[in-house]
Every structure is written in structure tokens, then in C-alpha cells.
């Protein structure tokens, strides 16, 4: 019993809400691999918004009362930055390109049950050329992580893992066969 009280005391000392801001967009190996697998034309990046426009999931995610916010205030804005970063890193970004990639973020969540965490991000990506849609598809990214009863482990695990989802979303887009067909240099 004494041990339980001591454990509870330890956990209390480690409690408290965390307000964490994500790092700025960085390139990922997964997106680079997917981009290297086909000959992509340079793309411009258009608007990236959330649907609905005032969605709470666009502003933050919550785990056990702690909050993670994107560096520029909105996850849709962060996804915009990630799209540019991934394209630029792989030599496929051209702000003046006729083919424009845009997106609408439709889902963004993080949940956990003290053992396992689960993050989801979904966006509809669109490629347009001269105002005409040449590709439109909903792309999903999911990630799981080992969670814990102890908040000091569970919360940062959730935040650091969930923060990778926008990169995974772009990697999944680059790997999508229909996207590759629409963005390839030598289309059939």
C-alpha cells in the first residue's frame, strides 16, 4: 500500500498540462523514396485549407488535457509547408509551374488508451492545370505508437509521433499510382 502511495506521489509530481508547439516543416525519407521512384514534373503549391474551415482539428490536438499546436497556427498551413518542403528537397518545386497541387485537410486526430496511441490525418489532394482538375483523391495517413499509463511518457510520445503525419500524408500522395500518372513527366 505504501508503495502505491509513493507511486501516486511520483506521478503527481510528473503531471500537469503541456502546451507544445511543433517544429517547422522538415523533409522525410519516406517522401524522398516515393518521389525518387518516378519522374515527377515540377509542381507549384496552391491553397491548403481545412474542411470545415473552423474545425478544431485544424488548430490543435489534445492528449490528456495537453495540447500540441502547429508552428503556424493551423495544421492545414503546416501541411502546405510540408508539401513545399518535400517537393523542394526532391527538386520538384516550382512556384511558377502550370501544374498546381492543392489540398483540403478533412481529418486530424490523436487518441490513446494507455497502451497504444493512434493518429490519423486525411486530406483531399488536387492537381489542376489551367483551372482544370487532372487529379483529385482523398489520401490517408495513420500511425501507431506505444503509449503508457504515465502521462509524462504518453503525452510526448503522442505529440512527437503525430507530428510525422503530414510528411507521411505527402509520402503516401507521392506513392499513389493515380497521382504518379497525373504528375509524371512522360504521361501515357
Amino acid at each position, binding site marked *: 500500500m505504501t*508503495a502505491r502511495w*509513493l*507511486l501516486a*506521489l*511520483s506521478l503527481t*509530481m*510528473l503531471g500537469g498540462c503541456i502546451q507544445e508547439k*511543433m*517544429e517547422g516543416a*522538415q*523533409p*522525410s*525519407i*519516406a517522401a*524522398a523514396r516515393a518521389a*525518387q521512384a518516378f519522374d515527377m514534373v515540377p509542381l507549384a503549391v496552391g491553397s491548403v485549407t481545412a474542411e470545415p474551415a473552423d474545425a478544431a482539428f485544424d488548430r490543435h490536438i489534445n492528449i490528456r488535457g495537453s495540447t500540441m499546436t502547429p508552428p503556424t497556427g493551423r495544421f492545414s498551413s503546416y501541411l502546405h509547408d510540408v508539401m513545399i518542403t518535400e517537393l*523542394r*528537397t*526532391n*527538386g520538384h518545386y516550382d512556384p511558377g509551374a502550370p501544374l498546381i497541387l492543392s489540398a483540403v485537410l478533412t481529418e486530424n486526430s490523436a487518441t490513446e488508451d494507455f497502451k497504444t496511441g493512434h493518429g490519423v490525418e486525411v486530406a483531399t489532394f488536387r492537381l489542376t492545370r489551367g483551372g482544370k482538375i487532372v487529379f483529385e483523391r482523398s489520401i490517408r495517413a495513420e*500511425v501507431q*505508437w*506505444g503509449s*503508457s499509463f*504515465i502521462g*509524462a*511518457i504518453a503525452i*510526448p*510520445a503522442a505529440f*512527437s*509521433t503525430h*507530428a*510525422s503525419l503530414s*510528411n507521411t500524408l505527402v509520402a503516401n500522395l507521392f506513392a499513389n499510382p493515380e497521382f504518379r500518372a497525373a504528375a509524371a513527366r512522360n504521361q501515357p
Partner: protein
Amino acid sequence: MSGIMLRAVRRTRLRRVLIVAALAALGAGPAIAAKFYVDGKLGNLKPSEIVTVSDPKPVQLLFEFQSSGVPNAKATKYAKPIAIASINQRHVFSELSEEAAPGRAVLTISMNNIPEKGAAGKGFKTGLTFGLAPLKVTDSYVAHFELLRGPGSAPIACDVEHALHMTMGKGEDPSIGVLVKNATDGIQMVIDQTMAHGINCLAGKMAAPPAAAGQ
């Protein structure tokens, strides 16, 4: 531990903080100091092992620190400058750039931190027994190096494994590894030695005949 370190490698750091805080909550903190050891298997490159590249070329670097296989942006931000400094010391590449350039080779490095399962539970046990149950936890690191020298070329790959150990409630034990001052020094040494061995391995394969290089 420095402020930068507190933000970076967060999951690893919090596990250690958790253990130390548990001990502090029990009033046992001052009596049980944490010791950090860099695993001794890898070590520094011996002069006879170093591969010299006669015609270093520029390369685009893509470095990613992962936690249990998932990209960790904060840890990447912390570890990347250490990795770049270490790679530059090897003089295998004439220039490291993160920007793409036509025809430039691409060096991809993932450094995956695999924490030991149940480490926090071990910490509580050590605290609850006031150090009578000594603690040893290990952070393992698996790094994958891949060099793509051009479109259509076969990638050259090398893998390096390393580890950082932490003990509590134990005296110094040189058999565990190289004792370092703190976790920050330990992680920096782990990254430095990992990069040195990985880049040296790539240099050896770059110098080898094409048929053997991809193996």
C-alpha cells in the same frame, strides 16, 4: 542536461527524467546518481580502418532521427548538426547540402532510437527500494546509410548499430562501456561514432568495384 537537450530526443529524455523524478519523489535522488555509458563495441575508428576518398563529390543530405521507426522532428533538429559536423570530418564528400541539385548524389541517413521496454518501471523499482534494486536501461540506435549516386544507379548501403546505457544505484562499471559526464555527452558521442563508421563504410564501398559496392 542543457535546454536544447530538454527539447530534443524528447522521448528518451522524458524516460530518464521520469526515473530521476520518481527517485526524487522518494527522497532517494541525491543518493543514487545516474551514470551514462556509451557502448564500447563500436568505438572510434582506428587510423588503419579509415578509408580515404581521392575525389570527393558534393552530396545532398537527407537526415532523419526516428523514435521506434517514426520520424521525430525535434530530435532530428537536435541531432542533424552533430551528424553534419561528424560527416564533414571524414572528408568523404566535398560538400553537404540539403538542397536538391541536378545530377547530385543523395545521401540518406536514418538514425532510429529503440528504447528499452519497461525502462520507467525499472526506475520506479529502483526508487521504491532506495537503490537496493540497481537499474540499467539501454537506448539502442540503428542507423541506415544509403548513397544514391545518380538516377538509375544502384544505391550503396551500410548499417551501424550503437547504444547508450544508463545505470543507477550501481558503482562505476567499465565493462558496460565508456563512462561519459552526462546524457548530452553520451548522445553526442553515439551520433559521432555512428556517423564516422557509417560514412567510412560507404567510402569503402564507393571505392570497391561496382559489382561489390551494392552488397
